[in-house]
């Protein structure tokens, strides 16, 4: 075979970069942008971390000590505070339970909304969404009243329900969108295979909707985890979430930067753990994902 000039695209006649070179360039550009954004994301986090690791008084020093001797003093203080640990554990428990519950309630409902003709579908959808429209501040008092009368005030169950209610519309809507993208033939095949509607849903549709489910799970977790107002108003002792705890470092006389930062860092931790745990499911849906080449 004669050697040929491989670098000129005969169809366009234009000089094209060698694909390897081009791929390298594209790859470099891609990672360049991603790293840039990583930096944008990381810097405040780094700053937060560094504040939490600096001794009191040095947190906001300028020019900053980019290199400093980290101290875990703040973390030790946190860890020694029984209340922090209790609130933390409490939050983990309530939020996790709420995520499971909201998925149990929301995902099937989303499926129905996606697959069946619902009378007045648009209005139903808007109605569901409307639960999310008012700022919590405008609805917290009625909820307080409900909680008082149903003895849900300052109970974990109450908070779990509250978290469910703030996430339900999200789960229903997002999952409906994901179910819309799953071809109905799959369930048809399942039903012909003798699966009941439920089995078809559980064994065939759900696995295909995995990325969607896990991403709403993460988002719901986060929404509940950082929720503040309901936790503030609807609890007082037993069911206090950890968010409130972060407030305790904003005193009337000074802000305890180090402790505040340490608590904030501690609050990020479960989210990161949760993220890592479900990470692999985020991209394992119908296909193996679009690989955007070129």
């Amino acid at each position, binding site marked *: 075979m004669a050697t040929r000039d491989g670098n000129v695209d005969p169809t366009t006649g234009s000089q094209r970069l060698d694909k390897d070179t081009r791929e390298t360039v594209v790859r470099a550009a891609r990672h360049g942008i991603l790293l840039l954004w990583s930096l944008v994301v990381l810097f405040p986090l780094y700053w937060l971390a560094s504040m939490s690791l600096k001794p009191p008084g040095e947190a906001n020093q300028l020019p900053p000590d980019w290199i400093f001797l980290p101290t875990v003093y703040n973390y030790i203080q946190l860890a020694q505070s029984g209340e922090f640990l209790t609130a933390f554990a409490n939050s983990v428990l309530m939020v996790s339970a709420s995520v499971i519950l909201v998925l149990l309630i929301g995902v099937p409902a989303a499926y129905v909304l996606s697959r069946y003709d619902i009378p007045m579908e648009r209005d139903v959808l808007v109605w569901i969404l409307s639960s999310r429209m008012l700022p919590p501040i405008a609805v917290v008092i009625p909820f307080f009243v409900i909680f008082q009368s149903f003895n849900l005030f300052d109970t974990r169950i109450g908070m779990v329900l509250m978290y469910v209610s703030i996430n339900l519309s999200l789960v229903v809507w997002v999952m409906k969108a994901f179910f819309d993208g799953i071809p109905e033939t799959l369930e048809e095949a399942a*039903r*012909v295979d003798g699966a009941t509607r439920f089995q078809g849903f559980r064994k*065939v549709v759900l696995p295909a909707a995995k990325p969607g489910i896990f991403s709403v799970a993460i988002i719901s977790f986060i929404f509940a985890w950082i929720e503040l107002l309901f936790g503030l108003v609807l609890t007082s002792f037993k069911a206090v979430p950890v968010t409130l705890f972060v407030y305790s470092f904003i005193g009337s006389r000074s802000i305890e930067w180090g402790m505040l930062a340490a608590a904030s860092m501690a609050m990020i931790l479960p989210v990161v753990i949760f993220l890592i745990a479900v990470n692999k499911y985020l991209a394992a849906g119908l296909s193996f994902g679009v690989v955007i080449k070129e």
Partner: protein
Amino acid sequence: MASITLDDVTKRFGESGDAVVAVDDVSLDIEDGEFVVFVGPSGSGKSTLMRIVAGLETQSEGDVFIGDALVNQLGPRARDVAMVFQNYALYPNMTVEENMSFGLKMSTDLSEAEIEAQVTEAAEMMGIGNLLDNTPGELSGGQQQRVALGRAIVRDPNVFLMDEPLSNLDAKLRTTMRTEINRLQNDLGVTTLYVTHDQTEAMTMGDRLVVLNYGELQQVGTPLECFYRPANRFVAGFIGSPSMNFFEGDVDGDRLACDGFEYELSERMRSNVGDRSAVTLGARPEDFDLSETPVKGNSVEVTVDVVEPMGSISYVYLRPVDQSHEDTFVVEIDGKRPISEGEQVYAYVEPTDVHLFDANTGETIHQRKLDLDAEITPKEESQSVSRSAE
């Protein structure tokens, strides 16, 4: 195991205004254990009919019975059917093995081990035994189709519905599969509806053929009936490959004046034609003879347009010398016989091999003569619905 009865089934898609009528008033009795093949052009409603039987689509009108039970209200699960989908519809998140065992897990109480045994056996039969752990995305088209087929046949349902289950297989595998399906169907005695575009499958697999066009039944009968006794021009043209050649003609006493040649009608033809003034003459490619000289009456002088050698046979495209337009017709000759394009020869068909159709309605008015008439004559009155076709 069950008979299937369709009673005036109609299916419309879309709003009533501009609805597509996919299935148009179809009535059909399928006996228990029968193997029925559906054929028809693309879009003629075959898949839709299957899906109605499966319970995946609800007919707009009419009733469906499986066994003696009216199943209009039942879903696929209750109907207990197994189906091969035209587009496979494999579960993308499951391996081949899981795909194939899913139905068994859902519809039977078999133990894991039994299921595995059956699936493995079926997979071996399909030649995909070594792919059990792959997911559908990693399979070739034909392999996927075999998984889809395997998924259906591992089960022991009331009814098999197979929608072009072999379309992506090569001829050899197709032959094997055909035999396997037939054997299996014989063994199990499961009523089977089968859609195919393959003439061989259509002619060899089924007890009866159901010919559809534009959602309407054209003919129901044994394959040979449909081939030798087509109910109308559509069926005549549709069954057989290459298809029958048609020549429009005007009746002129005992002659038929076609474009480019005249054809002398036999006694029997004349009486069948009656007082129609325009009829269509049909003759199959394999019934023509070519000769250098006009040996017999009704020979037509033709020019060879194209020769398609096929191995043991060749297809020759011919054009009557006197014809006013460019259309050709096709005849089949021995592959070893030399013939070249541009040559002028005479084409001839035995008068006994000719069909005549009403030029307006397409209805068959004269059938060819047939030695084995006795053999293919329907036991009962052939269910044929003749309507104008094409």
